[in-house]
């Protein structure tokens, strides 16, 4: 049983901020981890009529415990139907997914994602990562993408070491010209801030910052020049006590994804 009185930790805050991106009545493509917590939190609070879909092909499962893998029964628990992998991405192409969430090891100023490797030489990387999985497919096809990950200058470089998935490519109209579908990345969420993209240049821009973080600090945590919004930068709305209680008692009572590693 988790301590219900402890202050919210960064992972719980992150889950809440992600959940706020989800509108009721939408179809939400979910990867495991924090987006899963966020999806179920949204469903149990402000967006009870959303449908969650997974890369396993699971459609609209009954919520259960936190899954141990994308293929875990929890992602297709009593689903009315389970589709094949090629279908699950086609669903996004065909306009039956409203929003999706992607993780990244690196994200650049145009929202392009790297999950392949860190280093400048493909054949001799500093470290080889997982590769695309479904990351590229969703970023290529989904109407609205939200990118979620940690923020340091290395993780927010000017140019990613390997472009696994395309966000706004080189900015401007380049995503559309390359033939990609959907509206591209809408937001990047890190523990320090929420970022969006300038409507014409498509460069990353501060939208709101976590209380205690100012623009200068956010800039120091970023490997490229961040754009500033017009006017004052709002503070990111922090998790409410009600939502914190729902996470700790209903969504992730064992703290699988929302307790900090010791």
């Amino acid at each position: 049983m988790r301590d219900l009185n402890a202050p919210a930790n960064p992972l719980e805050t992150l889950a809440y901020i992600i959940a706020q991106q989800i509108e009721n009545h939408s179809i939400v493509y979910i990867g495991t981890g924090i987006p899963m917590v966020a999806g179920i939190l949204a469903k149990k609070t402000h967006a009870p009529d959303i449908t969650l879909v997974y890369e396993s092909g699971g459609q609209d499962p009954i919520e259960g415990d936190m899954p141990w893998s994308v293929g875990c029964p929890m992602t297709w628990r009593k689903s009315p139907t389970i589709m094949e992998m090629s279908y699950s991405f086609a669903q996004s192409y065909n306009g039956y997914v409203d929003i999706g969430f992607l993780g990244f090891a690196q994200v650049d100023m145009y929202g392009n994602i790297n999950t392949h490797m860190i280093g400048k030489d493909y054949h001799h990387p500093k470290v080889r990562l997982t590769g695309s999985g479904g990351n590229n497919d969703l970023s290529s096809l989904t109407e609205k993408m939200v990118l979620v990950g940690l923020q340091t200058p290395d993780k927010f470089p000017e140019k990613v070491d390997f472009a696994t998935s395309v966000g706004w490519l080189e900015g401007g109209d380049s995503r559309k010209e390359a033939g990609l579908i959907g509206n591209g990345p809408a937001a990047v969420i890190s523990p320090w801030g929420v970022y969006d993209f300038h409507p014409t240049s498509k460069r990353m821009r501060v939208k709101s910052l976590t209380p205690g973080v100012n623009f200068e600090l956010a800039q120091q945590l970023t490997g490229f020049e961040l754009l500033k919004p017009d006017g004052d930068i709002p503070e990111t709305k922090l998790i409410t006590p009600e939502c914190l209680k729902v996470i700790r008692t209903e969504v992730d009572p064992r703290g699988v994804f929302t307790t900090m590693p010791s």
Partner: protein
Amino acid sequence: MAKYLYNEEAVANLKLGDTSVLDRLVDFESARAAHLQKEHAKKDKRMPLDEAIATFVKDGDIITDGGFSYVRTPHQAFYEIIRQGKKNLQMIGAPNTNQSFFITYGLVTHSHSSYTGAEMRGIDKIYDRALKAGKFTILSEWSHGGVAQGFKAAQLGVPGFFSKQMLGSDLVRYNPYLKVVQHPLKAEKDPSVFVPALYPDVSIIHCHAADKYGNAYIYGPAVNDLAVAAAARKLIITAEEIVPENDIRYNKQGQIIPFFYADAVVEMPFGALPGSMPGCYYWPRQWWEKCMRFGGSSEENNLAFCNEWILGTKNQYEFIEKLGGARWIAEARRQTKAAEADNEDIDFSYDEYTLTHDPGRYY
């Protein structure tokens, strides 16, 4: 074998000297010839696992699996391939997680990369280490959806698909099979990626039930299985149980692989171990944590782990004994039923394996 004009930028970026190693994966003519030559009559194809692997897996083959990473994946058949020491293998799949077991023994020398890792348990340090040591060559970089489309094109009997996936990304610059093409009907510029139909040499699919002819029933996510069964030159079915043909005809609705694809049918209870099997058994979670964390920590530890569990067991029954025997079976069944809401909810907390804490149990 036909001649192919590969994506030259990708061939150069991947530093592939001889591109003939790429050909068989996309060679429709030889795949169709293999399909025509195999047994088309409804005959009893049952055989033991060692015979199926010895007969239908050859050195140099391109291998793929069914299932998803470690859900309904034919791990026990893979371990038999390793025990038999088949060499110079290529692996492809979406995901392509299980190649690391083969790479450990130097058996997979060529990788078609899509996803390697264990999700929340992190990156695959075994793959990372072997790549840096030059133990294998990456032949192509894919997204999951790209591989899935290649297999699906083969199943549906078309030379390939026009895909909107992978466009503009570095995947296209590191995949010799992909080319960007214009929509032939559209007046304005509308690029797609041409994904060719993919024909692996051998597919191994673990299913819930099969009859002796190879009609095979899958419960839960089918992932890419119906496609890879049709695409492969050779198909080995391993099944939790062998049932009469009429059981398939009368009782097994849903996802069925038709018998004529199958070359071998192997009765293989617990054939997905150490993976999970929908409706049947949950993961031994600590096994995967030990594999990734202990095996990931050094090559010596990885080899010790694989030697203990893969070469150190003759079959799935010895594997189960090491996991905890009948107690493990009972717990694994209880957990998977609860996960599917076919049992009262149970507490899914467990004693996790970490580098400083080995619980010494697998349920």
